[in-house]
């Protein structure tokens, strides 16, 4: 499954979550530093949220 984190593609196994995508993209530490993850419609998403093919996540 291909996901985009801050427009960078990452490959994730089925069943993995937003947290795994952020680990893979090396940005989970930004969440620890109080940044948040959002979907492409500007909705905040939780770290345990399920992923969808082609999903776009932004950390800011």
């Amino acid at each position, binding site marked *: 499954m291909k996901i985009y984190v801050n427009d960078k593609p*990452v*490959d*994730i*196994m*089925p*069943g*993995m979550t*937003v*947290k*795994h*995508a952020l*680990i*893979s993209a*090396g940005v989970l530490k930004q*969440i*620890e*530093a*109080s*940044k*948040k993850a959002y*979907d492409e*419609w500007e*909705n*905040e*998403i*939780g*770290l*345990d*949220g*399920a*992923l*969808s093919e082609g*999903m776009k996540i932004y950390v800011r």
Partner: protein
Amino acid sequence: MKSTNTLGTRSKVIIFSLLLLLLFLSFASAEEREVRILYLNDFHGFAESYRPLGSKEMLGGITYLAAKVNALRKEKPSLLLSAGDMMQGNAWANLFQGESVIELMNTMHFDAMVVGNHEFDFGQEVLKKRISEAEFPILGANVEGLGILKPYVIKEVNGIRIAIIGVTTEDTPVSTHPRNASGLKFLSPIDTVNKYAVEFKNTADIILVLSHIGYQVDRTLAEQVEGIDIIVGGHSHTRVGNPSIVGKTIIVQAWEHGKVLGVLDLTIDDGKIMKAEGHLEEIRPDIGEEDRDTLAVLQKYRQKVDSVLSERVGETELDLDGENVRRAETNLGDLITDITRQASGADVAILNGGGIRTSIKKGEIRVKDVYSVLPFDNYIVAIKLTGREIKEALEHGVSAIEKEEGRFPQVSGVVFTYSPSATIGSRLKEVIISGKSLEPDKEYSVATNDFLAAGGDGYRAFGDAIKASKDFEIIGGMMKGEKLVYSDSGRWLKDVVIQYIKEKKTIAPKTEGRIKEIP
């Protein structure tokens, strides 16, 4: 007199007009009806308030959420709905296989829930038991083979007939252990909802889809199926602050873990939504009151949690070393990696030492001892790596030995030698698997945890293998891809370890010289 008569006639006209207006207004208000939809999703057993990663404040708490539900219910005729994934994810739920959550939901008088993929994590028999305990319908219109699930429920609230159709993710077999979904079919949510939307088009005032398919798929559902008035969603843990509108469909979702409660107020006239206003109520322990009935359930299970955590798992004849796991092989590292390898059937297991947080003293082992050793909610994954990739992973593992970082590997099924004084990237000297030197081009199955598989602690080898893997599918009851050979996201490693020790009763693991340091 004339003027008086004229005034009298005018007065009569005004009074008559006012009466007509009042009659019209009373007629109009008799047709307009209100209903409030309260909703929750992806609770995952987070009954207690907690401080999420990166947050400075405590959020959630089911007793506060229940009190808010009570207050909102008093204002308007309401429905309380759940969009799934309620029963698994937190020790408070997992230790009781979701029974504690169903008791909470019964106490709060939920009206309906859709089954989430993680509701299957304890197996179908446990799920059937939980469904039978629930005093509200649990829906799954697109699940074939589990007859106890209902496809829909019709609720009449304030004279409004609401058809609630439940659909869950087609990915359930790959987002729980596939054995939990064995014999079941997960049909297309879109086709399923389409069928019921046609059926209820003329018999319901409102068609509401209670969905556990994720926000992105909810939007597609709204685009592709006509006639859906509202989608109350879950699965993607999305915080939809203001209701989204896609076509003529309202989409809402209430984040996760009971940190917010969703509120959607509807005004209905002649089967049409005339007005819809929605928001999320923040749930925090520093605002609002606790609901007493829910608090009683919470306290009952708090005591049970303490009791379960103190349960005896088995006994160790030796101290289990969790102190030195970031610099050397330890018997606790060997034990946990052996269990990981055995559970997955892999050739090799590699775990990060940093995932093992403390030691266990010789003597009795209790549940909470294992939970302290493995505090993270990691699960086992096994991936095919080439000998070259295994070497790369181990080389990375010993690349920060002087800093005692968490990446230092604990291993099973492999013996390796390394020199901490050598240049970073050239420290690994010899690697042996099954008594033979590692073959660079040969593929081996390697078990690890989901954290390393995703690239945690800087391990890239697993992610690179996943990237190279072709499509994933279920083969022989297990999710497999070209490189993926095992994944059990519904069962934590700590629980696998507890099960192993329970079966063995007494353990006495010794280090075996799997990791050898040379000058």
